[in-house]
């Protein structure tokens, strides 16, 4: 469907205007100006912030620079989460631009993963794709791909920062194989999803969930939530306590899960769903 392909493009090209400010306790030789950047929702912080690092390096001494990390309002930001997810989870109902604080010292060892090079980001990304395919196709599709096909997926993601139609096509030429399923099945074996919570110690919920029930009923987003996180769905007489957000929007709970998985997944083939408190009026 022509409309559905537009959804893929809109998701791919999503951007968040961001303002990076150096943490006040960092040692600088002169005052550091904030740095503005449009961040691609689909990418990862450490993949797209070289310019940020270079900007602040100009006013700092080399010996005061360790691994760069970020926080938003005191919460350290996990680089291995897609940027769009981080925004939806932590800053959905705040004013733009998104204000991120940059650190070069006191890396929070217990909470953040280290990211010494792009290889680590690639390994993480490919690992997610592999896991998603284990759920969708028992790993058959990903294992049938050659190493160069894996590279094409990774190159496509690296290039998401470029607003180029070619790069979108390059990625989807390979990714569409991961989105196929036998017609008689009606959908994937299980849907790769994670529901992220802000009001819990647990970072996310991930369970086995089929897109089609044994008696052929198409499962919706609402069915998924009722099964794995019923707290997110208001009772009929209650006002809404939570928002269920994917790529910055609240899809209707009646949306078929299979459709969401095919169209609103991230490049890592996972549906990353944020459940956040609804803003009080």
């Amino acid at each position, binding site marked *: 469907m022509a409309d559905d392909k537009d959804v893929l493009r809109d998701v791919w090209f999503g951007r968040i205007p961001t303002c990076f400010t150096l943490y006040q306790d960092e040692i600088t030789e002169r005052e550091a100006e904030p740095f503005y950047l449009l961040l691609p929702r689909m990418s990862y912080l450490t993949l797209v912030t070289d310019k940020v690092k270079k900007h602040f390096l100009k006013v700092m001494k080399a010996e005061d620079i360790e691994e760069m990390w970020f926080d938003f309002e005191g919460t350290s930001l996990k680089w291995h989460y897609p940027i769009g997810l981080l925004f939806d989870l932590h800053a959905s109902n705040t004013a733009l631009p998104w204000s991120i604080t940059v650190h070069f010292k006191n890396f929070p*060892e217990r909470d953040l993963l280290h990211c*010494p090079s*792009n290889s680590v980001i690639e390994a993480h990304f490919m690992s997610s794709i592999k896991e998603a395919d*284990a759920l969708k196709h028992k790993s058959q599709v990903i294992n049938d791909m050659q190493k160069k096909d894996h590279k094409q997926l990774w190159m496509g993601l690296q290039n998401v920062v470029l607003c180029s139609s070619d790069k979108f096509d390059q990625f989807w030429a390979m990714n569409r194989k991961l989105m196929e399923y036998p017609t008689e099945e009606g959908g994937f074996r299980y849907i*790769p999803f994670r529901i992220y919570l802000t009001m819990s110690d647990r*970072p996310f919920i*991930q369970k*086995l969930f089929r897109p089609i029930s044994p008696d052929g009923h198409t499962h919706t987003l609402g069915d998924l939530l009722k099964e794995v996180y019923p707290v997110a769905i208001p009772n009929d007489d209650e006002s809404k306590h939570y928002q269920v957000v994917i790529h910055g929007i609240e899809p209707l709970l009646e949306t078929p899960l299979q459709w969401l998985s095919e169209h609103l997944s991230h490049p890592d083939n996972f549906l990353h769903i944020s459940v956040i408190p609804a803003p009080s009026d």
Partner: protein
Amino acid sequence: MLHVTIPPFPPPEMSSCFLDEETFCQCCQLLLQHSHSLCDGWSWEQVKGSEEGYLRKTALGTGRTRCNLDQQGNSSDQHQERTFSLSFHNDDDDDDEDDGAVCCIQEESSSSSVVQYEYHILYSCSYQTPVLYFRASTLEGRSLCLEEVWDSVHPNYRQRLQHRPWDTITQQEHPLLGQSFFVLHPCRTEEFMMPVLKAALEEHRQVNYIVTWLSVVGPVVGLDVPLSYCTQKHQWLCTRRLIDCK
């Protein structure tokens, strides 16, 4: 003594040997029973408000740590030679945007020291296998970095880990706690479990999946499994039915 009805393991059709979550929990409970008798430190941690949980154990072991690192794990040493490289792939892609050294350990600047390990055994529903998570710190409380963890792996296992990207140790987020842990990647588990389970099936023996699995992956990261785990009768699953393989 635990009185439960547990379906026979290995399952009758041996085309795959995936572990379902219920059997995972039951195998863990059996392991715990034996652990209590040995007092070797395993406990079951339940996730608040859910039936999910994981096995946990802390232990002191040896590891190779860098002696010139400060509390934050940063080197006071000016020299960092690349004697040991840590990439998973042959990096022919453009790396000049990287931060610089994937830091390495020179033989002279690392030494054997006492390390505090914490091991968690979780269930992966994506791969339908158990997964071993662990973290390590010095006695002063400094977290070991990935390079030190690699250096602490027994030389016998190191070659295997280096050449097969999917068998490797990486840093990951703990799915239940949200903190940084090291993980042995689970996607090849079926490869080494299958022959063991098939043999058990043919010989009409039953096995504790977790004990068998742990005895393979544990020693790689300093976690040994005493032999009595496999020889104690109550470690086998309770059902004594013979399995017909169709």
